[in-house]
């Protein structure tokens, strides 16, 4: 048994991204089978139509069922049951359906991956991976108004369904174009537009056209005004959550008051902020108000902006967990330029996703890519990239053009101090630095 165990090759567990891709592939395959059944003679009238398995078929047939007692042709009660499952999932797990189970989303992801490869992502120039040219993002001036298109489409389809016999969308539905296997000239056009837009702009249909996405956005309380605010459009002046933040007179808490914290202080004070600091050994006579261990909750509760610059040590790992984040004001902003593990990953994601914080700027992460070749990986097991109240940067707080010169000067200053018998930048190895 022992010998067998020794010779067994331990398989690395699949990453979440891999699992997602496999699940998406399974959904697409299932849709392909449903599409095959759809074109079999007589199946459409026997409940084998694509619309029958489509949650949006449930949206289309809802009003006719409530008003007339009958479902639209090619839809049925199963469409409503699947709609219930999709909306139920969105209430518990946000847009998980769009990312994990939607066949249209899966095909768009596949096309986006192909666009990246075709537009040069794999090429390496001087050891650096060249960025893909496609899929790209639309300019903000175009992106902003287009985001409302899906709400308009949803409203039009719901209105049209009242007097319809067949689902209003099914003549130009991209699901029919992709999986229906019986294409009309109109559906050929839809297919071409779908493929072209997906190659050029990542998840174009999801962002701008999907009426089911519009419905899920409503169930997630992601109202249009909130989206606008997150892109810098101030929106409704009467809603306090949509207003900007006046930094002057507010409290900035530096969690970690080493070289980075001290360097930040003049900048924050120049903005008119009152700077406070949390450190292991607070000084009563310090020039800023300092908090020590045991006073962290008190310090967080008073802060409007928190900047974390702590290293990852056994003492600091998970220092800011769910209980600590809960102490922050809902209007507080959090910045982490220290180490990811200082803030509990799940607690931070949940606080941001639930809007319990104004937002976060995160430079240091929980998962990093392998180099040579550079791996494509999201920086956390949680989808921070889907949150609009997060600014993400790839751990490049020190990536400035002349950082080598700055570092060399610092080393020189340390050596000069040592030669003069002075200590400089002493590292506390006992604390796990």
């Amino acid at each position, binding site marked *: 048994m022992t010998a067998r165990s020794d010779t067994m090759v331990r398989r690395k567990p699949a990453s*979440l991204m891999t699992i997602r891709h496999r699940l998406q592939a399974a959904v697409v395959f299932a849709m392909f089978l449903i599409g095959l059944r759809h074109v079999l003679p007589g199946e459409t009238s026997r409940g084998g139509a694509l619309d029958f398995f489509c949650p949006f078929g449930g949206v289309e047939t809802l009003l006719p*069922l409530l008003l007339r007692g009958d479902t639209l*042709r090619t839809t049925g009660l199963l469409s409503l049951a699947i709609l219930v499952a999709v909306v*139920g999932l969105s209430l518990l797990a946000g847009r998980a359906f769009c990312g994990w189970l939607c066949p249209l989303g899966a095909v768009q992801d596949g096309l986006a991956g192909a666009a990246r490869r075709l537009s040069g992502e794999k090429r390496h120039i001087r050891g650096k991976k060249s960025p893909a040219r496609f899929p790209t993002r639309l300019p903000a001036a175009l992106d902003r108004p287009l985001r409302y298109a899906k709400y308009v489409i949803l409203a039009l389809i719901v209105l049209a369904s009242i007097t319809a016999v067949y689902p209003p969308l099914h003549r130009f539905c991209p699901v029919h174009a992709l999986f229906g296997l019986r294409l009309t000239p109109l559906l050929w056009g839809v297919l071409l537009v779908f493929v072209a837009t997906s190659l050029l702009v990542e998840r174009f249909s999801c962002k701008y056209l999907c009426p089911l996405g519009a419905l899920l956005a409503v169930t997630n309380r992601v109202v249009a005004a909130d989206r606008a605010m997150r892109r810098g459009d101030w929106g409704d002046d009467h809603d306090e959550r949509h207003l900007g933040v006046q930094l002057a007179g507010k409290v900035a808490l530096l969690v970690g008051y080493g070289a980075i914290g001290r360097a930040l202080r003049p900048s924050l004070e120049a903005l008119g902020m009152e700077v406070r600091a949390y450190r292991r050994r607070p000084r009563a006579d310090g020039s800023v108000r300092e908090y020590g261990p045991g006073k962290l909750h008190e310090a967080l509760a008073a802060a409007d902006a928190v900047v974390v610059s702590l290293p990852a040590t056994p003492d600091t790992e998970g220092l800011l967990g769910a209980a600590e984040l809960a102490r922050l004001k809902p209007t507080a902003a959090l910045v982490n330029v220290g180490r990811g593990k200082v803030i509990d990953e799940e607690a931070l994601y949940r606080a941001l996703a639930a809007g319990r914080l104004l937002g976060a700027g995160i430079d240091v992460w929980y998962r990093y890519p392998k180099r040579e070749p550079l791996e494509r990986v999201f920086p956390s097991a949680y989808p921070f990239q889907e949150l609009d109240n997060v600014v993400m940067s790839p751990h490049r707080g020190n990536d400035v053009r002349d950082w080598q010169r700055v570092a060399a000067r610092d080393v020189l200053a340390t050596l000069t101090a040592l030669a003069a018998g002075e200590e400089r930048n002493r590292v506390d190895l006992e604390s796990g630095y």
Partner: protein
Amino acid sequence: MKVNARLFPLIVVATFLVFLALALLLGLRPEPGGGHRGGQTATQVTLLLALFLGSVL
């Protein structure tokens, strides 16, 4: 409650299936021949809608 991130796919699929089963149990079942004619299901759908609106609002 701390949930292992690796369980997320399982949670997504399980939640979807649980809600689907709930809807089927509440009477939103496919009928032989497809489609639905007759008014009694409208009451069930109205109740479901009320349930969802109650949880969302």
